[in-house]
């Protein structure tokens, strides 16, 4: 298999606001960065959890939404052409003989760099699993939390659970391929886009699929093969729905994931760092933003920005061991302004 191999100066795990701003601070010091994020978009919690919610404590912005902050950061780091590896989880890290680190993702991307920056916030966003007995028995064979390949679901008797956009979108996308399709949701209102809901209801009216209001309480089947589930409607008797595939979409939650196996010291699932360089117990590995801890730590975006700036100073010494680091201001340094493309924009 041909692997997707890259070499760069700094690998940033997590493309949230702090990971994005780290690209800027590293870029000013001539370091290139690759970013890995499990989400299909940049912005981390700002983009996934609260894109529309106003944030009031970003310096210089009396109010800004999570998505606007993300968009602004992307514009700010554009001159440094960061490379993004999205929808991939940083899965393992190993030290190479040449002193560099090699990071692998669950999508077979391999990146080599002298410096690693863990800016993973609350951890990786992973699917929430419902509390249903025997769930693990069927995971990976009959129960799934995402769709990577639609073909896999061809001819199946599918039950989709949930009321958000993922549940509705996959119901609509897989219905033409499936042998049978049904949706189960705890109530008859949906938070998914109204257009998707009306398309789904149309299919129900045309008897092309079923819709059940209730909660899944039991799974039935043998050897990992599901044959039906028990649905409990509120205030009515439970009944069985036949299906061989359950797709559960109950949203995402953050889990530390494979970072716990990177061999770093951990304190209550946070990574201890010093407050001078924000380096971990392992040289060349830094940690910034919500995922680190030190005396007086505050989980604020602005603290993460500060941590990124100081991290970059020490990262420079690893990436350019023979060069002297000179501190400059973007307001006065023509070389920094050149890196930022200031002249081009003025012209």
């Amino acid at each position, binding site marked *: 298999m041909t692997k997707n191999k890259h070499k760069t100066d700094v690998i940033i795990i997590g493309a949230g606001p702090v990971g994005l701003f780290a690209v800027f601070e590293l870029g000013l010091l001539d370091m290139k960065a690759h970013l890995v994020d499990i989400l299909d978009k940049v912005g981390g*919690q700002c983009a996934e*959890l*609260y894109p529309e*919610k106003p944030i009031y404590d970003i310096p210089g912005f009396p109010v800004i939404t999570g998505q606007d902050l993300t968009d602004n950061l992307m514009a700010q780091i554009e001159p440094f052409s960061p490379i993004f590896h999205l929808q991939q989880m940083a899965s393992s890290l190993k030290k190479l003989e040449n002193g560099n680190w090699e990071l692998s993702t669950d999508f077979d991307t391999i990146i080599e760099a002298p410096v690693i920056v863990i800016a993973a916030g*609350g*951890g990786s966003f992973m699917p*929430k699993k*419902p*509390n249903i007995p025997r769930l693990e028995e069927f995971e990976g064979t009959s129960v799934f939390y995402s769709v990577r390949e639609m073909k896999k679901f061809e001819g199946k008797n599918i039950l989709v659970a*949930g*009321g*958000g956009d993922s549940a509705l979108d996959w119901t609509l996308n897989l219905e033409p391929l499936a042998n049978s399709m049904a949706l189960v*949701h*705890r*109530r008859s*209102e949906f*938070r998914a886009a109204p257009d998707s809901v009306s398309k789904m209801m149309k299919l129900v009216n045309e008897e092309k699929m079923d819709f059940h209001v209730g*909660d899944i309480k039991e799974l039935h089947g043998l050897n990992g093969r599901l044959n039906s589930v028990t649905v409990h409607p509120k205030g009515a008797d439970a009944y069985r729905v036949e299906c061989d595939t359950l797709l559960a979409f*109950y*949203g995402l*939650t*953050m*889990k*530390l994931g494979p970072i716990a196996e990177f061999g770093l010291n951990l304190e209550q*699932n946070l990574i201890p760092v010093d407050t001078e360089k924000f380096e971990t117990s392992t040289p060349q590995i830094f940690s910034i933003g919500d995922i680190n801890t030190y005396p007086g730590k505050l989980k604020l975006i602005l603290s993460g920005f500060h941590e990124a700036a100081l991290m970059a100073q020490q990262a420079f010494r690893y990436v350019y061991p023979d060069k002297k680091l000179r501190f400059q201001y973007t307001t006065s340094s023509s070389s920094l302004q050149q890196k930022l493309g200031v002249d081009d924009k003025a012209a």
Partner: protein
Amino acid sequence: MQIYVTDQEGKEHALDAIEGWRVMEIIKDHGLPLKAECGGACCCATCHVYVHEDWIDKLFDMRDDEEDMLDEAMEVEDNSRLSCQILMSEDLDGLKVTIAPGTEPE
């Protein structure tokens, strides 16, 4: 002012409450295990609680975004609420809630 919070293990805690704070913040401030990962933005459902029947009618009605977000909570009942959406006030002195499953920090 106090609130009474039953944790995931079934143990009840009497917590000092402060007017204007969200019940989620009071629970976390006392160090009880509550994930509340979005930090009170009504965006995650990991601060899900069951409100004791005596208190349900004393709360403000749920807004649509809270009802929507409960879709991502586990084992939702008629007395389910997100504790980040309950604002502490004198009227709620003595409020009783039970932390719901699916809210345990990692």
